[in-house]
């Protein structure tokens, strides 16, 4: 059994920036870009299509906007957790040594 396995080396990586959140935010940005891209707007750009009397396109834009904000809020609350180092795994005392 190797002492200090993968978890330990990942924790002491030389990058000090505790940024596990980066990938999440980049993914969110890409999602936002796709949601607001003119191509996807065309999909929801149906003349006459309505939700409670409001044109589908407007509803789509504002709902996507709300979703993005909610996801950002959720993610930003978790930044602390995400940045926390992985707790070292307790070594199983086995094999009778």
């Amino acid at each position, binding site marked *: 059994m190797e*002492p200090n396995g993968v978890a330990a080396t990942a924790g002491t990586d030389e990058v000090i920036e505790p940024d596990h959140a980066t990938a999440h935010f980049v993914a969110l940005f890409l999602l936002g870009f796709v949601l607001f891209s003119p191509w996807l707007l065309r999909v929801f750009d149906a003349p006459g299509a309505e939700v409670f009397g409001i*044109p589908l*396109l407007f509803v789509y834009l504002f709902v996507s906007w709300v979703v993005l904000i909610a996801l950002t809020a959720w993610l*930003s609350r978790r930044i602390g957790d995400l940045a926390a180092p992985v707790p070292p795994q307790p070594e199983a005392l086995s094999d009778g040594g």
Partner: protein
Amino acid sequence: MLPGWLIIAAAFGYVSLLFAIAYYADRRAGRGRGLIANPYIYALSIAVYCTAWTFYGSVGLAAKSGIGFLPIYLGPTLAFLLGWIVLRKILRISKVHHVTSIADLVSSRYGKSHLLGGLVTIIAVVGIMPYLSLQLKAVSTSYNVLLHYPEVTAAVTPADMPFFGDTALWIAAMMALFAILFGTRHIDATEHHEGMVAAIAFESVVKLIAFTSVGLFVTYGLFDGFADLFNQAAAEPRLAQLQLADAAGGQWLPLTFVAMLTIICLPRQFQVIVVENTDESHLKKAIWLFPLYLLLINIFVLPIAFGGLLRFPLGTVDADTFVLALPMAERQPWLALFAFIGGLSAATGMVIVETVALSTMICNDLIMPLFLRFAWLHMAERRDLSGLLLAIRRTSIAVIMLLGYLYFRLIGESFALASIGLVSFAAAAQFAPAILLGIYWKGASRRGALTGMIAGFVVWGYTLLVPSFALSGWLEASFIENGPMGIALLRPYALFGLDGLDHITHSLFWSLLANVGAFIAVSLSDRQSTIERIQGTLFVEVFRQPGAEPAGLWQGAVPLNDLRAMAERFLGGDRSREIFTEYARSHRVDLVHATHADGDLVQFVERRLSGVIGAASARVMVATTLKGEGVGLEEIMQILDETSQVLEYSRQLEQKSRELERATTDLKAANERLTELDRMKDDFLSTVTHELRTPLTSIRSFSEILHDSPDLDLTERQHFLTIIIRESERLTRLINQVLDLTKIETGRMKWQMTDVDLGDVIDHAVSALRHLFEEKSIALDVHAPDRVPPIHGDRDQLIQLVINLLSNAEKFCPAGTGRVDVSLKTGARGVTVSVADNGLGIPPNEQELIFEKFHQVRAGNTGNPMGSGLGLVICRGIVEHLGGQIWVRSTLGKGATFFFTVPYARGRGDAPEPASAAVGGAADG
């Protein structure tokens, strides 16, 4: 009725309220209880992004292009999704380097270059001017519209009015006064403008409420809710067209993109996001609060636009004034007045922050470097410069406002609000490559940034600014139609024949292409100077130096008095003394008796100075002070080179020490484990010796009895000899087991791995022990399927394993009624063998322990140990070596069942039909 005096009184009352808020916040900050140090105020202050353009212009744009107004707000939303990554980096850099403006950031990044700082300042001033004039135009138009209440008319052009009768001039003057009072109170620009920020945050609330009030009035007062409004709009073909995405045209992507860039590149956004930030963690909330604000203020844009278009006949009312005109047409004077105040707050917020940011740039990055350069001004020798700095900033604010006003009078009249604002956006976007590439690419060079920015600015000017002169009649219209001197390729709105794009997209494409292209090309072919390399590294790797100030560039001793004198000239006596005390305290040095300052202190002072006069000027000041001490340019360059080597060396050292640390941790863990093993070995030895002594003692004592008593009768003699033989056997077994165990644990056991049929193994073990069971009349039954897929293992060891388990079961079974069942079941992954007895059973607390060495289950509390305590340990060693598991289930008094599993031989992926209720699915070999 809304008489003019009432409107003016309301406006003055509102601005006075702002003054009061700013004054109060400044007072609080002075007493150390700042109002602005919380994420909500921070997010609201960022909402200074929403100007009169948003308040009036969005509706105007929506009336022309439907959802086409949205990209200006979706862009920043997208940019803020990356806020935690990009903005936080800029924030951190600015904190570490005491950056005071966007010009300072760029100049500092590219080797504290004067030229770049000055260039950014000039671009900012020229580029923002249309934007400033837009605010004045909006306020003045809204005032004039409101003045005609209740009659809704097309706006009166201010050009018809006398110069001093123009409300816009007085509004501009009032805004300038506010900016001067609350934006240039301090000398040290890195201290925050608490009062200003508090007022801006308040304005953000006012404009949001005002706009939403008008929106609610239109939607639910004029119409019967959203559905009714949109239905009526859909009934008119002219408006139905606006409900489609096509209405936004090809501008959607370019506008989103430019808005993304400008959210950080506009001087005022940089001011509120970066300079006025008090705590990096506020960004965490702001990255979703600010987009939320944008969403809220945009909800009613379309309803108001459609409402206005439905209410007023085509072309009678300028769509830019719908926000005011709708309440007026419905005879709602107070709502109209409130809307006017909302627009006023949107405009004043923008103007105040923008002028303060620009004045800081003009002072630190344009005028001070020039003053310092001209030796005949003897600036470097002036006693007290802090007063001069303030005077420069205050004058700049006044001049900027005046220029904005002139632009508005002379040019701004002919455009809609939104298109004026976009011209400024395109200018601000020219900073983006230098900033964004600068903080992520160490190779970005000063000359690259300079060339790129100049190229971008020139193209921007040619494709957006110059044509706007032509449109206003300052140049011939043929300039736009046919190009300069009739060269069609150079038509400003269709450069090189790029036709069919709107002006903004066209200009953005060419200017950013020139900017980024020149930037990258020059940077790649450039050799960076040492200070550029150092600054580049410090910027790009800002997160790698947690808290630690980088090594100073200045070496050698500088007379402390010279340094003090220099600091006093810029900061004033009190502030300067504070700084030196702070340094002495934080670095634990005695400055009272010292005569010379070391490099660290010089660096420290330079940083503080850069907070006042900008990085580039501070550097020159320090350099001139030191030059008197014989530190020439040559020497400085040498020092810089050495420093960069030292930096590199120290990075390597850091890396080494980190590796060492890791090795130490590993060693420590290994050591702990060794100690543990040592202890276990001791335990083992003492137990083994004990276990060996017991049979030995009994052998010896019975031998002694036999030896000393020759007259024992035969049966007794026979009995004693049997005991001696049994004990010797036990001893042999024990020693064999110890040897086996040692071999298994040290890995010296020679495993003969083959494909083994476990059924065969069980048969073998059972036949070896059959007579033992028959002697004690214990029933022994085997339940196994006919065909068992082979497993991978050592046949002899497996036989040993089964024998161990069987003899274990035999030991604990009562003679006569005992019963042992051996079962074999094939599962998805391997074969499970169980050996069940109906003996004493194992107490639950011991079920885990029996697999430990020398743990023996005793028959009752006083009973003798019934095994060596090693059999099960060996079993576990064998099973685990083969990749299986061993465990026990038992109820006290009802017997125990031992299970072990061994995986199938490799390469035999297809598990046979599970003979028992094993979990189905493909085996994983």
